[in-house]
């Protein structure tokens, strides 16, 4: 049986760290990078007698997420204790939500692939629930012992669980990226994957195409980059297919991905799975969310990517592809909108081309985020306006962009004036240049007359060169053809 006869089924569980200033059940700070155990209160280290108090800011972020994905925000949800022993889990249980999560259902539309092969797909979400993070066990540097850092213990997390709707690693990555963009867009999570603010677990199984039952899944834990997510799923899929084709069976298990070897390896089988003995936490009342609270959160909600994309298409005439690209992240959308508003709505399309084209390429090459772009939206708008009003050509525009990027000027107008880049549109001046070029290149003229169209392009190039790029290219074309023809 060949690989094409297999279907891959993937569901993701994402832990998004909510960007509250304090922890979910205590007043300790959530800032990253403090010295070990400096951001821990009596509650975080689970001293005898302490009690949790729910951070309303964490709940508000969960509501915002629920509303953003069109989910049911439960009017009543329940915190439960997930019991297990581990040194970095101070209470011996994690406070989470089990039977009644705060966010139920919802969906996210993703765009997979590029160019002609690109397609859209809607991924359904099962649920999203609030929970606290554990601390960290540090197994190195302690000579056979383990160090415990509880700074992270009690950090608020939203665990976002998808339905098993994805059918390839590309879809899984597209979903993870869309989710990552959304949580940052609605400002509930900083999305910093190196610091563990956004971590993915992937449930992966394979089945024969056309099968109605799911295969047995294995869960790949703690993938903290999109690249690892893709690599881990790809490895896992080929491993599962090979195992089955060799006559083996997949055992339900939790596995870890080793980025060095590119392989997944088993952490624990289903038999070793904990019995977490979930039960409602008697220290916390059921979480009640009123319609008024939801309405307040809704009122503070920024325009969501879907609505913004539709607006870009309807009002500014962008293509679906452009609108999708420009709303892929909050930062890009903010930059683009600022550029259009500094230029004009009529220039929305050329602004889009610049943001997605030259700017994106330069940022990518320099490994810069758009929020750190050396060229500001206002500067880019100034450049786009000068091209649009024919002050400069597109080719000169690229030079001006370079100057802005390198900080050689503060506005496009400044460099255009200083270097005299203004396009030459005076017919007499262009004719004079063309006459010189024709006189200096009799061979090309001859070739053109003999029917070689290429020679015409060479002459245009010479004329542009002679004008230092400032001649209006279409005028050069037109006048040259007239003279040669005449």
């Amino acid at each position, binding site marked *: 049986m060949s690989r094409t006869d297999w279907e891959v089924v993937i569901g993701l569980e994402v832990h998004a760290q909510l960007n509250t200033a304090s922890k979910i059940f205590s007043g300790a700070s959530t800032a990253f990078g403090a010295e070990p155990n400096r951001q821990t209160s009596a509650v975080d280290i689970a*001293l*005898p007698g302490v009690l949790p108090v729910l951070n309303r800011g964490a709940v508000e972020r969960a509501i915002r997420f629920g509303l953003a994905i069109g989910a049911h925000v439960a009017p009543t949800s329940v915190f439960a204790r997930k019991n297990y022993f581990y040194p970095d889990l101070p209470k011996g249980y994690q406070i989470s939500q089990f039977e009644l999560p705060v966010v139920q259902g919802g969906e996210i539309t993703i765009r997979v692939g590029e160019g002609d092969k690109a397609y859209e797909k809607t991924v359904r979400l099962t649920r999203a629930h609030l929970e606290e993070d554990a601390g960290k066990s540090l197994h190195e540097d302690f000579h056979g012992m383990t160090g415990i850092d509880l700074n992270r213990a009690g950090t608020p997390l939203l665990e976002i669980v998808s339905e098993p709707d994805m059918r390839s690693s590309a879809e899984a990555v597209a979903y993870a990226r869309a989710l990552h963009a959304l949580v940052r867009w609605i400002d509930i999570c900083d999305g910093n994957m190196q610091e563990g603010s956004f971590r993915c677990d992937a449930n992966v199984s394979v089945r024969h195409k056309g099968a109605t039952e799911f295969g047995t899944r294995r869960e790949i834990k703690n993938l903290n980059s999109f690249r690892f997510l893709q690599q881990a799923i790809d490895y896992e899929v080929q491993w599962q297919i090979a195992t089955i084709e060799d006559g083996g069976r997949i055992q339900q298990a939790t596995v870890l991905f080793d980025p060095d070897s590119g392989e997944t390896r088993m952490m624990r089988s289903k038999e070793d799975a904990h019995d977490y003995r979930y039960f409602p936490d008697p*220290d916390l009342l059921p979480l009640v969310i009123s319609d008024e609270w939801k309405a307040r959160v809704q009122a503070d909600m920024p325009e969501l990517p879907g609505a913004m994309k539709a607006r870009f298409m309807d009002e500014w005439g962008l293509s679906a592809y452009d609108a999708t690209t420009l709303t892929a992240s909050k930062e890009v959308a903010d930059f683009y909108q600022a550029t259009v508003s500094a230029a004009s709505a009529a220039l929305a399309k050329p602004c889009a081309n610049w943001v997605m084209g030259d700017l994106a390429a330069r940022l990518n090459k320099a490994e810069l985020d758009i929020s750190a772009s050396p060229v500001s939206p206002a500067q880019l708008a100034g450049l786009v306006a000068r091209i649009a009003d024919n002050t400069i050509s597109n080719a000169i525009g690229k030079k001006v962009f370079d100057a802005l990027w390198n900080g050689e000027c503060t506005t496009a107008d400044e460099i255009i004036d200083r270097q005299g880049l203004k396009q030459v549109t005076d017919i007499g001046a262009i004719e004079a240049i063309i006459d010189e070029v024709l006189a200096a290149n009799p061979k090309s003229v001859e070739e053109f007359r003999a029917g070689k169209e290429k020679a015409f392009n060479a002459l245009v190039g010479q004329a542009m060169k002679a004008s230092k790029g400032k001649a209006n290219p279409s005028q050069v074309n037109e006048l040259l053809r007239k003279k040669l023809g005449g």
Partner: protein
Amino acid sequence: MINASLVELRRALDARQISSVELATLFLDRITALNPQLNAFITVDRDGALTAARAADARIAAGDAGPLTGIPLAHKDVFCTEGVLTTCASKMLGNFVSPYDAHVVSLLKAAGAVSLGKTNMDEFAMGSSNENSYYGPVKNPWDATRVPGGSSGGSAAAVAARLAPIATGTDTGGSVRQPASFCGITGIKPTYGLVSRYGMVAFASSLDQGGAFGASAEDCALLLSAMTGFDERDSTSLERPAEDYAAALAAPAAGKPLDGLRIGLPREFFAEGMADGVRTAIEAALAQYRALGATTVEVSLPNAKLAIPAYYVIAPAECSSNLSRFDGVRYGHRAAEYTDLADMYGKSRAEGFGAEVKRRILVGTYVLSHGYYDAYYLQAQRLRRLIAEDFKAALAQCDVIAGPTVPNTAWALGEMADDPVQMYLSDIYTIAVNLAGLPGLSHPCGFDAQGLPVGLQLVGDYFSEARLLATTHRFQQATDWHRQRPACAQ
């Protein structure tokens, strides 16, 4: 002076007949003399008490004294006290000094009360006899061969023997009311949520509630008024205005001060299983209540008998989780030698916890396990609702419910040591009240043939503490059972 009421002590302190330092010294000296026999205290904080007493004297001199300023008291060793050992009578916390005060402790400190020390208890408040203490059993001041009740046995014995005028306790299934009954004093467990649980080491979170011990309802009212109040650090703390329970007692006692009060007598509590001496004393007390103007009416709590099985699922379930934090990692007992992490957990907990605590952790772990949760835990929660509905129906027919606090009087030390279930059954009248979250009070109402105190329990609707205390106060104005003292306090 050792038998003076809080009102009398207040008057003496304010009139400078005695200083707070002198008063604290008086009780500290009694502890020194009597604690070796009674074992009511785990920790005596003489220095801390005298420091607090000096501060109280300064407040009194400055005219800044509240009702409890300069009054000595004792805290059950389940309340965290900054800088003083908080052991929960367990080897597990034998070395634990809390860096913070429980809410109750800080409220009483702020009120100017003088803490003499920490009282003995059943380990982690699990038990009905105070025999489950790593520090040894407490002796009943009325008969040192008998138990004082539990789990707040040290606090009850301390107040009965006048080692402290008042004491704090906690009541999860009767742990204030039952020892109050066995020791011949008054004890009240308020409505769940009235006293903050912050800093009260958890046994069963949905049932635990702080309470007050005193010789009389009046003393309890003064203590309880200072212990209650909303605390934002406890999510189950109730946000309602503070009440002055002592002021509620002040209504002038008319000829028939309890005219119009309807006392409900649950048929099930009077049916069987009650010791003769208890029955006689309870019936005499009810006659007294009627003489004060109250009427009695039979009510029914048909599901009350299910309280014990429901409780012994819910309480162990919560305790198995609550006690997980005692793992030897961050504080408390850690085994001296171990091979790996699992071995460290296993040995530290095996060495640190006593038999009853282990029994309940095992039961709780079992009932929460996959496949058993519905049959045990959910079923017990259903019973809990039925029991609460029973009380609601009964309280629609009466103002307070009365009956014995315990079916018997204090039993001999060791008598039930081999039969934990028999001991669980002795909590039949008190446990249902915790499951419903209602307030309950026990007051002395006589003695059995062996001269052991009998307690009468009053149960009221939510937030009826003032009524329970006032009703008891009327009874105590007409009787002197609450003035009886064991030989060691005469």
